[in-house]
């Protein structure tokens, strides 16, 4: 869920990271990191192509840290972080930032909340002052909470309620997890959005917005040591706090396919498949990424070729890996033509999955997936924003930003046997939830 102007439907193959080792060796040595006395991690990567800076503050809290009654709170909090402190009026954060030439955004997922600023380098100290102020002095104005509640509900209507495939995805995710909080939709269930109390917010902030629960990543036209010194000046005095409660729940192994049907008024049918997958830090993650590229990345991928081009059962076939601190889901999405045959599309999908489980993939497919990952890596490295995202993702989700620079070796090590073994293990129908959005008459959908 994002705060500002776009809602990301997490539904493309996670862009990969693969690196030519020579270029990366240089890059790794350019990164400087420090841990402040209060536990906040600061990572700086200079890149002086343009006189700007990308700042990402990764907070380790998401819908995974919620429970019934307060679902959607992490995302709501992402909105509240812009709505005033004891020293600044609601709206002042944005107005000061923009008057200094900077833009911001924020997003929330199952695992993390990310606050982003894109600024001219001259605005760095102003931005640090604003960021530190909201971590330390956040205010909770009742009137502002009510107004922002309306904004969040509008976001939900836009991204979920008026979007049948998103509604289906929400239901599939809820069905796939019986115990683990990954079943909670990040945007929140409607009744909870309407019910949060100010005390819920205060408690959530106190617990989760601890400096020791934050990783600050800066990429751009900066001097590492001076930047870290400035970070100390603004952030180090914020007291460390307890941080989120550990999530101890493990999802029990699924022992049979689950099915979800959504009856709604739509012109085109949708079928979704969600298999239980792995955590982001799982050593098999590079294997899974290459497997997904082979199955569902682009016009040359197996599912697109078979279902869209050859059999014309679908108009699109996509995949996405949701991998967080805990094992997430491996998604496949089929969008069907208006007169599409859901059963036939599902059967054809199953045949493709069985083939890859039985026979694995070809050498040429593995080489292609590696090349796609390599090129995508460089596309990501072309911007300060892409670098800040990658660095933060490795630091927070995989435990160490330096792993970013080890990625080429990890991809090179992936073998044909490993891909076949992984496909055999993960892509079993007993481990999946299938969601179907058939096209039904309006009257039936309304009942």
């Amino acid at each position, binding site marked *: 869920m994002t705060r500002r102007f776009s809602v990301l439907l997490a539904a493309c193959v996670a862009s990969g990271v693969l690196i030519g080792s020579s270029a990366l060796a240089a890059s790794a040595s350019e990164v400087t990191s420090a841990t402040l006395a209060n536990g906040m991690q600061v990572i700086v990567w200079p890149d002086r192509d343009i*006189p*700007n800076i990308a700042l990402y503050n990764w907070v380790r809290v998401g819908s995974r840290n919620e429970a019934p009654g307060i679902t959607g709170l992490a995302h709501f909090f992402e909105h509240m972080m812009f709505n005033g402190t004891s020293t600044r009026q609601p709206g002042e954060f944005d107005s000061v930032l*923009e008057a200094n030439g900077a833009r911001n955004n924020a997003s929330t997922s199952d695992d993390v909340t990310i606050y982003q600023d894109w600024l001219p380098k001259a605005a760095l100290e102003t931005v640090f002052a604003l960021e530190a102020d909201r971590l330390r002095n956040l205010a909770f104005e009742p009137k502002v909470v009510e107004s922002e509640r309306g904004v969040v509900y509008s976001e939900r209507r*836009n991204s979920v309620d008026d*979007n049948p495939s998103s509604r289906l995805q929400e239901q599939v995710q809820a069905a796939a997890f019986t115990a683990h909080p990954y079943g909670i939709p990040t945007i929140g269930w409607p009744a909870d959005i309407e019910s949060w109390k100010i005390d819920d917010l205060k408690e959530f902030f106190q617990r989760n917005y601890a400096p020791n629960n934050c990783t600050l990543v800066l990429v751009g036209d900066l001097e590492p040591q001076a930047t870290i010194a400035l970070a100390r000046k603004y952030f180090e005095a914020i007291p460390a706090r307890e941080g989120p409660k550990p999530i101890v729940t493990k999802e029990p192994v699924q022992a049979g396919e689950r099915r979800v049907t959504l009856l709604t008024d739509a012109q085109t049918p949708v079928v979704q498949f969600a298999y239980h997958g792995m955590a982001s830090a799982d050593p098999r993650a590079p294997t899974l990424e290459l497997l997904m590229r082979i199955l569902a990345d682009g016009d040359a991928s197996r599912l697109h070729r078979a279902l869209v081009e050859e059999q014309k059962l679908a108009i699109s076939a996509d995949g996405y890996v949701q991998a967080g601190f805990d094992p997430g889901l491996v998604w496949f999405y089929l969008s069907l033509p208006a007169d599409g045959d859901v059963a036939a599309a599902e059967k054809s999908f199953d045949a493709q999955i069985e083939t890859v489980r039985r026979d694995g993939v070809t050498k040429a497919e593995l080489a292609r997936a590696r090349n796609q990952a390599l090129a995508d890596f460089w596309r990501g490295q072309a911007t300060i924003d892409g670098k800040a995202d990658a660095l933060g993702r490795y630091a927070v989700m995989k435990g160490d930003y330096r792993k970013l620079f080890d990625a080429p070796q990890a991809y090179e090590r992936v073998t044909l046997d490993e891909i076949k073994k992984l496909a055999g293990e993960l892509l079993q129908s007993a481990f999946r939830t299938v969601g179907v959005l058939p096209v039904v008459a309006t009257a039936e959908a309304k009942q």
Partner: protein
Amino acid sequence: MSARLLLRSLTLSLLLCFAAVPSLVFAAATVQIPKYERIALANGAVLLLMERHDVPLIAFSADLRGGAMTDPVTASGSASLLANLLEKGAGSRDAFAFADAIAAVGGTIAASADTESINVSGSFLNKDRALMIELLADMLQRPRLAREEFDSLRSRQIDFLRAAKDSDLGSLTPIYGAAAVFGEHVYGKSPIGSEAGLAAITHEQLTRYYRDQLGADRLILTIVGDFKTADLKPLVTKAFAGWRKAEQPFSRPAPPTKVTGRRVLLVDAPTSVQSYFWAGNVGVSRAFPQRAPLDVVNTLFGGRFTSLLNSELRIRTGLSYGASSRFDRMLEPGAWELVSFTKTASTIEAIDLALDVVGRLHADIIDATMLDSSKAYVQGQFPLALETSAQWASALGDLEFYGLDRGYIDQRLNALAAVTLEDARKIVQSQFPTADNLTLVVIGNAAAIREGLRKFGPVTEMKLSDPSFAPQGK
């Protein structure tokens, strides 16, 4: 080229947005066009080559004049369908072999149509530049345009439109809006076609359309990235020097006429829980000389988070997740438009507020603080829009396409710095429509909002499921 809509799959979601108006607070000299070479071939093609060596990638952007505005009246979507068909096999490769060749090296090539052009763009690792040029040249000069690919692509594109009507209503209001404001003018044509228009296109028509509308004299090819110009220039020149010209001459569109008065197009989406609204009129062209004050004013009006529009509809009232405005600037004046959405019950209230903000803009609301903030914002974000090879390819291509001089970029920061309050006031009066001269488009539950909308002007109604973007008979 104007707003590009991606309807390739349900999962490519998104996104309403603020035309990111680029910019910067310090040294105006920090953004200058790097050195590049312009090559005009005898057949009319223009090649632009710029070296950039930060990452081992090469980006390209091929713009072909024409686009949806050259769609036959009864065949809306011809340019869009042709663009997609170009990807389905060319030269010695059939559709699968063509896709395999790109994917095998991790490249990307995507073709799409816009109101005034077909664009083919992508990127490759530098080591694969010869293959990239070969594929691009084949795609433009020797596309297979196979009948079976045509058939399946046409059906798929119609279904993408249906899928968008299921899940992406906000992205559709500008298409209905352009049709309502521009009417019979070529800028009223949908860049992605319509279900009815696509269904009417025949294979024979489309292959004719290819010969008529694509050719070297329509081409601007911009390549930016990690290469040596001395190496790439002969390769590209050789690949494109032999291409024929388009069989039909390109004719520049006539200037459209502003719409006076207010009227409403209501698009009935009976099960929608929100209303998606758009208000617009004819704006300015790309070559409009007072671009700096125009962008500064539009930014403070509807081009950033703290804009007047977003402040009212989101920050103050919580009625919407977002509200924004933009100018769609083309060879001739395109639309100025504002967009937002709100729950069905607050539709009228939200439109009232949006129109009220337009009224306030005309009531001399801009003060020095607001102006300075907007200038700093546009300046500060400008370098971020010219960071990558792909961004430079697009920007250079635009200069050539619209006949702009390099001052369009080189003098951008100086021009922004020089904007005065008086400039801003003048631009509001001369270029921003007043609230009583706007065409409104609302997609929503007609039964719930029909009566309320009447106060805004005469209401014309159509259904979301209608197979075109204008009421029948138009």
